[in-house]
């Protein structure tokens, strides 16, 4: 570091003259008044400094200098006159190079629309905020910076993104992702965020309907960085290190202490709870160590004193600490990226390379991603431009970690240990009781114990993912106002998943032992005594081609028309193959054939006869084809009124040819009024005032419905009797059509007070109709249900985004406030369920109930505890403890509809404070107006599955407690229906409202111009900081559902922008 400083000083001195003046200032766009980063300040053609990310510059000059040049890409050069003896604070405005296009354009994937003339709801992502987040994935960086974009993290399989609510039941909520003009069909996590130039969100019909049948969930248009003609060689670098703490398992509420757990086991033992399991001599179900000791004591094999000693030794253990010590680590995410770009008169290029090396918080999980991205454009002759892009990603993922070591369907007992005091792996109970495994097989079978630490060391599970995209584009201007554009894209991706169970792994040993046949001292192995290999190949191929005419003409200075029309063809092929090898050895790649047809006895009659498992075998192939025609035109009069129209018709192979002819095209119409340009408008405070209104239709592709009767064939191996088979999916239905959403959007864009404050407000109403839903039909037909275009959803919402930039001396405050409201309602759904219990759950899955929110949280009414600690519910409007009938026969009088599990109001408040070159950014997120269900204690699960919960400590214990707690008393034997009732009652629902600090970043921008530090930025980043206010008083984070929220993560990085 010191060395760097020395060098920087050295370079700095070169640029200094003896008699100097200091000048400083800002560079902005004359059109949008946005600050321009990376503008060069030159003296006699030599760059002396460039502006930082906030458009500021500072330099020292010889006192005699009277003139400086200011240059920025896509702006006209500017000459700055230095006035002697002035303040030397210059605020420079640069004119955009192409005034006809306007400098802020919005990419739709088909064209670039000048923001000024856009009628639709486009959301342009603030790339400064995007680049402040060091996350490996593009989508993760969008969290909390885009109005209306909602991240749901309740599922545990990664966040689910949605925009503007729900428009389908079965087609999924994820927005369509476009990367460089074409839908990206692969895994978006293969895209390096450091290669991204801009992201635009297409929200309403006018913006998105050009994407037709795939636009119903809104569209995210990602454009990667490109080179520019006549641009000097530039480079950018990024290096980040991010660390995430181990999860906070010690604050996991799903736990009860060891001593309490043991005393419950003792009590259950006394009540003969374990008798059936202990006397079972066939399947040998798992018995916990404490119960095993108690049984031995009862059988007189050990004394009471010995038993107490053994059990006392357990009570110092804590499974959570074992997990933390052995299964978790501080994660390390390392990210390196390099960007290069250059442009001459005829050729320009951009090269991006990235390496992400991640070690996850789960020990032995992680990945290494290499990305390479190149975009080259050439202009061999006038009027012609050819561009070639190649994107390559290779992601090697390790999935060797263990997060639990649970036996069968149980949760591991809290006093388990994974290693002795010397660190030697210890066994825990897995599938059979320990006492059985000690003697089974007379020493002839393989070791049958399960040692989590050995398993962790032996795990050999990887995914190798590669993705290649080749893009070719040809642009030709036929005449000045008419251009032809041809684009093609080919994408090929593959995922190879390998799960290798070595011969030493428990999985292999268990299977080998189960099928071993002992006679005398001979062992006959039905499953070969070697490893097992499962391999799955997933391949994706997609190809798209597009021919498009672009027209643009102005008349008489007042009329201007921009239009495009084109046709597009697309194919997406997916292929899946998987197999399992028995007898596999990684040393010589040998394998053995096994008999997977006949049934064999299972060792020790642990179960009836079985065939060798045929898991891992898989084949599948899908082929989706689309042909589309589209057109889009906008007419602007006097730069005040803009009318836009768009239409698209999609045909596909999904519903059959007969259906293709029937649909009306997706269309949209929009109108924008630039009030500021009206001669009567004289409010000087305004620099922008635009009203927008649009209406039109977006669509969803839903593969659930089929026009013709279809059957699915299964391979012989998938049925017991080993002959090929098939089953009927659906009967003929030629009435199917695309799902459609009619969206009305009203918006306004305002910029006031010399651009210090700007706001965008959009209100929308979306009526999604023709939603495919299953409808009950007469089962005498042989089918219970059929998919028909019958359901409807109404979604309404408001999206507000306000930003400002206020400076006082060296301090700048840049607040960004984004807020969205959203309400979803199923307006039509014809199927009803016979039992309300289908609606009573965590509320995270789509619930199609007509008249309700699709994410409703519904509970059984809770009428308190009775004087014995039993929960009281309601049945037919009367207080009741008839739990089984409450669960199956509750009426609407007996349940409570709390509201939605999705917030009605949510958004972020991002504050960036700058002092000279130091910028601190704090992103606060808020979510209001929603509910969630907490986990609680289930005594049935505690006894049978060893699943604890902290609510145990607040349970009803003595008469009178019913006034203080809602948690039922512990009873022997447990009543599963009583527990299920309480778990799903209104007593376990809390308000979800919360405000959190999502992340904090601190950045320092180096100033010097010619030094190696020029343009460098040092950055610290903290995320998962946590909730600062919450409506629930249980300390829970509702956004993670019943899972643990991730621990604090922090990182440092160094960056030089391209």
């Amino acid at each position, binding site marked *: 570091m010191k060395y760097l400083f020395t060098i920087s000083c050295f370079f700095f001195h070169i640029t200094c003259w003896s008699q100097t003046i200091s000048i400083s200032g800002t560079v902005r766009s004359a059109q949008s008044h946005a600050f321009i980063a990376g503008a060069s300040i030159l003296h006699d053609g030599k760059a002396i400094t460039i502006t930082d990310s906030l458009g500021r510059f500072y330099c020292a000059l010889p006192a005699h200098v009277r003139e400086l040049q200011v240059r920025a890409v896509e702006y006209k050069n500017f000459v700055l006159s230095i006035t002697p003896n002035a303040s030397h604070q210059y605020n420079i405005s640069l004119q955009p190079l192409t005034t006809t296009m306007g400098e802020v354009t919005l990419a739709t994937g088909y064209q670039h629309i000048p923001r000024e003339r856009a009628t639709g709801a486009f959301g342009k992502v603030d790339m400064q905020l995007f680049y402040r987040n060091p996350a490996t994935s593009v989508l993760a960086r969008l969290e909390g910076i885009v109005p209306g974009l909602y991240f749901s993290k309740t599922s545990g399989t990664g966040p689910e993104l949605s925009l503007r609510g729900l428009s389908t039941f079965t087609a999924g909520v994820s927005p369509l992702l476009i990367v460089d003009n074409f839908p990206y069909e692969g895994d978006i996590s293969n895209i390096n965020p450091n290669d991204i130039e801009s992201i635009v969100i297409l929200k309403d019909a006018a913006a998105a309907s050009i994407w037709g049948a795939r636009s119903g969930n809104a569209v995210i248009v990602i454009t990667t960085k490109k080179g520019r003609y006549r641009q000097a060689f530039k480079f950018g670098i990024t290096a980040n290190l991010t660390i995430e703490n181990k999860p906070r398992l010690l604050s996991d509420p799903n736990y009860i202490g060891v001593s309490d757990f043991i005393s419950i086991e003792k009590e259950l033992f006394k009540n003969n709870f374990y008798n059936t399991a202990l006397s079972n001599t066939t399947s040998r179900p798992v018995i916990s160590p404490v119960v095993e000791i108690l049984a031995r004591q009862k059988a007189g094999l050990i004394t009471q004193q010995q038993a107490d000693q053994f059990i006392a030794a357990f009570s110092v253990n804590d499974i959570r600490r074992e997990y933390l010590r052995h299964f978790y680590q501080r994660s390390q995410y390392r990210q390196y990226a390099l960007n290069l770009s250059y442009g001459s008169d005829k050729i320009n290029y951009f090269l991006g390379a990235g390496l992400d090396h991640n070690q996850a918080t789960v020990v032995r999980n992680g990945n290494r991603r290499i990305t390479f991205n190149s975009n080259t454009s050439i202009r061999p002759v006038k009027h012609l431009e050819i561009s070639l892009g190649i994107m390559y990603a290779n992601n090697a993922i390790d999935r060797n970690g263990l997060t639990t070591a649970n036996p069968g369907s149980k949760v591991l007992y809290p006093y388990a240990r994974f290693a002795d005091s010397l660190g030697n792996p210890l066994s825990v109970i897995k599938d059979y009781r320990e006492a059985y495994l000690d003697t089974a097989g007379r020493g002839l079978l393989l070791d049958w114990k399960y040692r989590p630490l050995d398993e962790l060391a032996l795990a050999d599970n990887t995914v190798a993912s590669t993705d290649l995209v080749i893009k070719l584009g040809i642009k030709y201007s036929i005449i000045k106002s008419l251009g*032809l554009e041809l684009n093609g894209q080919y994408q090929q991706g593959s995922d190879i998943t390998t799960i290798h169970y070595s011969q030493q792994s428990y999985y292999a040993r268990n299977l080998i032992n189960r099928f071993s046949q002992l006679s005398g001292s001979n062992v006959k192995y039905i499953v070969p005594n070697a490893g097992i290999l499962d391999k799955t190949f997933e391949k994706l191929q997609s190809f798209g081609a597009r021919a498009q005419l672009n027209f643009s003409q102005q008349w008489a200075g007042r009329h201007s028309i921009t239009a495009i029309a084109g046709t597009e063809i697309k194919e997406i092929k997916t292929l899946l193959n998987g197999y399992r090898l028995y007898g596999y050895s990684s040393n010589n790649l040998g394998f053995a054939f096994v008999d997977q047809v006949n049934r064999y006895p299972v060792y020790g009659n642990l179960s009836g006869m079985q065939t060798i498992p045929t898991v891992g075998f898989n084949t599948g192939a899908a082929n989706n084809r689309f042909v589309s025609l589209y057109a889009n035109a906008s007419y602007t009069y006097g730069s005040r009124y803009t009318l836009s129209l768009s239409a698209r018709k999609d045909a596909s192979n999904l519903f059959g040819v007969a259906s293709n002819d029937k649909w009306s095209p997706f269309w949209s119409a929009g109108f924008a009024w630039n009030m500021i340009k009206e001669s009567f408008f004289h409010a000087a405070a305004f620099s922008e005032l635009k009203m927008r209104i649009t209406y039109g239709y977006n669509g969803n592709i839903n593969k659930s419905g089929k026009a013709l009767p279809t*059957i699915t064939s299964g391979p012989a191996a998938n049925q017991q009797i080993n002959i090929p088979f098939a089953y009927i999916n659906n009967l003929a239905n030629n009435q199917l059509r695309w799902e459609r959403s009619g969206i009305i959007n009203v918006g306004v864009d305002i910029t006031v007070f010399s651009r210090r404050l700007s706001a965008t407000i959009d209100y929308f109403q979306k009526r999604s109709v023709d939603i495919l839903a299953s409808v009950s039909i007469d*089962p005498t037909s042989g089918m219970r249900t059929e998919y028909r275009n019958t359901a409807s959803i109404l979604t309404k919402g408001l999206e507000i985004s306000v930003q400002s930039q206020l400076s006082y001396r060296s301090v700048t405050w840049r607040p960004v406030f984004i807020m969205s409201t959203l309400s979803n309602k199923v307006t039509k759904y014809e199927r009803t369920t016979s039992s309300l219990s289908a609606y009573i759950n965590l509320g995270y899955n789509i619930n199609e109930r007509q008249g309700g929110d699709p994410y409703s949280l519904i509970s059984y009414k809770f009428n308190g505890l009775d004087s014995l600690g039993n929960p009281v519910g309601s049945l037919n409007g009367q207080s009741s403890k008839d739990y089984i009938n409450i669960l199956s026969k509750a009426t609407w009088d007996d349940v409570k509809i709390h509201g939605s599990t999705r917030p009605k109001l949510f958004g972020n408040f991002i504050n960036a404070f700058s002092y000279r070159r130091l910028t601190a950014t704090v992103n606060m997120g808020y979510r209001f107006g929603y509910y969630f269900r907490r986990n609680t204690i289930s005594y049935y699960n505690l006894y049978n599955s060893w699943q604890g919960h902290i609510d145990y400590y607040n349970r009803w214990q003595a008469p009178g407690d019913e006034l203080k707690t809602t948690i039922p008393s512990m009873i022997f034997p447990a009543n599963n229906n009583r527990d299920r009732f309480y778990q799903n009652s209104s007593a376990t629902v809390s308000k979800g409202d919360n405000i959190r600090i999502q992340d904090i970043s601190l950045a320092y921008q180096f100033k010097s111009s010619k030094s190696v530090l020029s343009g460098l930025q040092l950055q610290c980043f903290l995320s998962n900081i946590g909730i600062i206010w919450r409506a629930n008083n249980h300390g829970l984070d509702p956004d993670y559902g019943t899972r643990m929220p991730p621990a604090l993560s922090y990182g440092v990085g160094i960056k030089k922008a391209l």
Partner: protein
Amino acid sequence: MKQHKYMMPVLAMLLTTLLPSCKKFLDQKPNHALSVPATLTEARDLLNNYVVMNCQTPDMSMESDDDFYMTDALFNTSNESVKAAYCWKKDLVTDLAWENMYKVVLTANMALELTRQIAPTVQNQVEWNTVKGMALFHRSHAFYQLAQCYAKPYDQVTAVAEPGIPLRLASDLNIPTIRSTLQETYDQIINDLKQAVPLLQVTTMPVSIPSKAAAYAMLARISHAMENYEDALRYADSCLQLNAGLTNYNTVSASAVAPFQQFNTEVIFASTLAGLSRFSVNNLLVDSNLFQSYHGNDLRRSLFFKNLSPQVGFGFKGNYEGNTYGQLFTGLAVDEMYLIKAECQARLIGFAAAMDTLNAFLVTRWRTGTFTPFAAATDQQALDIILVERRKQLIGRGLRWHDLRRYNQHSSTAVTLMRLVNGNTFELAPAHPNYTFYIPQIVIDQSGIPQNIRQ
């Protein structure tokens, strides 16, 4: 600017060649595992789906019959429908049985429609015959199972007036659902099977595929249920001529968890219950009197029953499907044919022939060297012995309900069923209306067909 002259024609040509090829481009099927059925192979694959076609025998009749009983503990944790069927209550939901059986009917109809679309040729004649025969067999089998649950017991006199089941003979879902008469129901079943006989292979591998022997066995079972003993005898005989392989129970291991193998030599056509833990070995408790009726040297005593504990009693493990988790065999087997033949001989020919048939069968069930042939002095005596042995052999096959419906037609053989549950006694009188189940309400709502009467 010269080159621009060619630009538009080239573009026009590009578009015009692109558009007609669209239709072909879009003809590709989207999911390769999905297909619009069009071939005999696909028809056969549909019929070969073991779970859908063979393993959905309705279970509510097994809940209601008197082969087994439940402990109060099991009863108390059972769902409402099981409880209602067990105590012969008026209201119980039977939707699943209806749906599953009509799914078989639909699949068979789809296969039959394919045989109508695809003309038989010299090359495909065997396959064509097999597919058609299989489809007819499966449809009849499903109609028969439906008739035993949703229509009254067959009575030759009233069958023309009593409602039967809806006979769906095509896959089109727009066909209205109407109830046939009981006579039409049985005529359809018998005629379809007769039509299937010449089309089917003599025997098949595996025996989940209907064979000629299976068609005869099914005809024998149905004629027997209709009390048409002449036909039943003829068909049982025809079946036994093709397949008379009895298993010598001395070769079966009594210590095995599930002594009998799936598709063992006695199985003519495999079909099963869906597999519910309710019918697993530990939950199927046999009445102690019935258990005691097996002689000490009768191997079925140890092959069919597992001593669970002195308190609980004996569970049933004589499942011909070879599993313990409740997927009970309900198919056709050689033993049943022997018993039908013997019974019909006793009723029609005489006790001597009947006892010969019975003893030829029973000798394989007893410990080698211990069996003394059963003797009868009259036809009635022979019949009584045979009916007792029928009950002892066919326990847990789902046939008891069918037999009870038949026995209750005559006061001499009528049976009153009794249950003791949580200290309460329940009774089902002979020929009670609750021997017929309710048709699912959704069918009544959507089609308007008349509902059955229960009390």
